[in-house]
């Protein structure tokens, strides 16, 4: 884990997917009664691809406007957050490799996985605005799909490639 990644863990309140994350302050949210933890669990549900992906995303977050000298927009933070916290957990098997993360000129990002038999690309232009492309190198067939919040078909593709 890089220093930048370690810095990002300052708020390391782990959440169940996104569902329990906070949307707003609520004054009447009472103090939780803690469950004391004497023996910390030694197993972890943290997926192997996470740290490497976060390192790349934090580098993308540092890009400013015109980062390529051609007038490209800086990468949108809501795109990074949406991709990391709301797309990848829904589609990635734990053993899948981290994607290559590439900035796009419109503030979005492209995520790419390349295996022996298939290539998968996801373009996240904005929250709820995703285009997924899947190319089967064996059959030569390509499938493109526009997605918003339901990534079930993309999850099926990723699990069929990387479930081992």
């Amino acid at each position, binding site marked *: 884990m890089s220093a930048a990644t370690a810095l990002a863990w300052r708020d390391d309140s782990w959440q169940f997917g996104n569902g329990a994350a906070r949307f*707003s302050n609520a004054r009447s949210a009472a103090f939780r009664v803690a469950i004391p933890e004497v023996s910390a669990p030694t197993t972890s549900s943290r997926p192997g691809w996470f740290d490497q992906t976060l390192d790349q995303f934090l580098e993308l977050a540092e890009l400013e406007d015109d980062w390529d000298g051609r007038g490209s927009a800086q990468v949108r933070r809501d795109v990074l957050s949406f991709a990391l916290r709301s797309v990848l957990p829904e589609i990635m098997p734990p053993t899948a490799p981290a994607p290559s993360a590439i900035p796009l000129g419109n503030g979005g990002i492209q995520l790419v996985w390349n295996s022996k038999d298939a290539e998968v690309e996801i373009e996240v232009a904005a929250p709820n605005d995703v285009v997924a492309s899947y190319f089967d190198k064996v059959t030569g067939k390509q499938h493109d799909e526009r997605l918003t919040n339901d990534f079930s078909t993309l999850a099926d593709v990723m699990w069929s490639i990387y479930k081992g």
Partner: protein
Amino acid sequence: MTTRPADLPDYTSPPVTEVVLGVQFNSLDRFLSPHLGSIWDAFRDSFPLVEEHAYFPPVFETFGTTGPFIIPNINFPIIAKPEMARVHFVNPERTQVLQVQRDRFVHNWRKVGQGASYPRFERMIEVFEEGLGKFIAIINRERLGPVIPNQCEVSYFNQIPIPEGQTTWDVFAVTFPDRVGHAAEIKELGAPEDTRFMLRYVIPAEEGSPLGRVTVAAQPARRADGANIIQFTLTARGKPETADVPGVLAFLSRGRILLSRAFDKLTSEEMQRRWGRKQ
């Protein structure tokens, strides 16, 4: 004017202590700290008090594999710029709050002391709609937009006191009899000391695809005054069917009905009687 659906259960003294209506939109990256002054100007007559709080990263209800990974709550600051705060505009009675940050507009009602009574959803959504309209007008006037809603949320926070002489488990059992029962008792140990639960339901869109989730959670907690309580929270969060103000209002209205149904289904008749159920 919004009217209350006739078939929704109503209570004379519900245990609700806070209600939140909110919308999250695509981040307005040209919205900078000085613009908060323009926003406050539009609201300071009714909300003259101001507080600064930490920014919350965006949240989304999405769908894919069952049981997605646990993911940390990571914020992505733009390194070259400090992160803008979340600002609260508060009314003089401190019962109503508008929360504004670069990607969110939220309205809270909260119970302060014993006197304040819940103004009801119909009034709250009017305040929310009026406030959101003012906010969007300023964003458009300053050319900071467009405001593109991507998630909505309605939440109800309820506090159920644990009376003196009763255990947390006792109150769980009488409040949520279908979730907590005698089957959990163990001969050598008796009944559990306490419990907690979270239920998640998928909200379908009209054509059947998933729109968001209703999340219901109950857990032992302690109020700021030290009283032991069960915190019972119901939240409907998801994508508006259309990314505009009517879509947001439709989601919040539907979410409120779903939460009312969930409250009605999951709590006991005995407790509903104590809360003064009218029908």
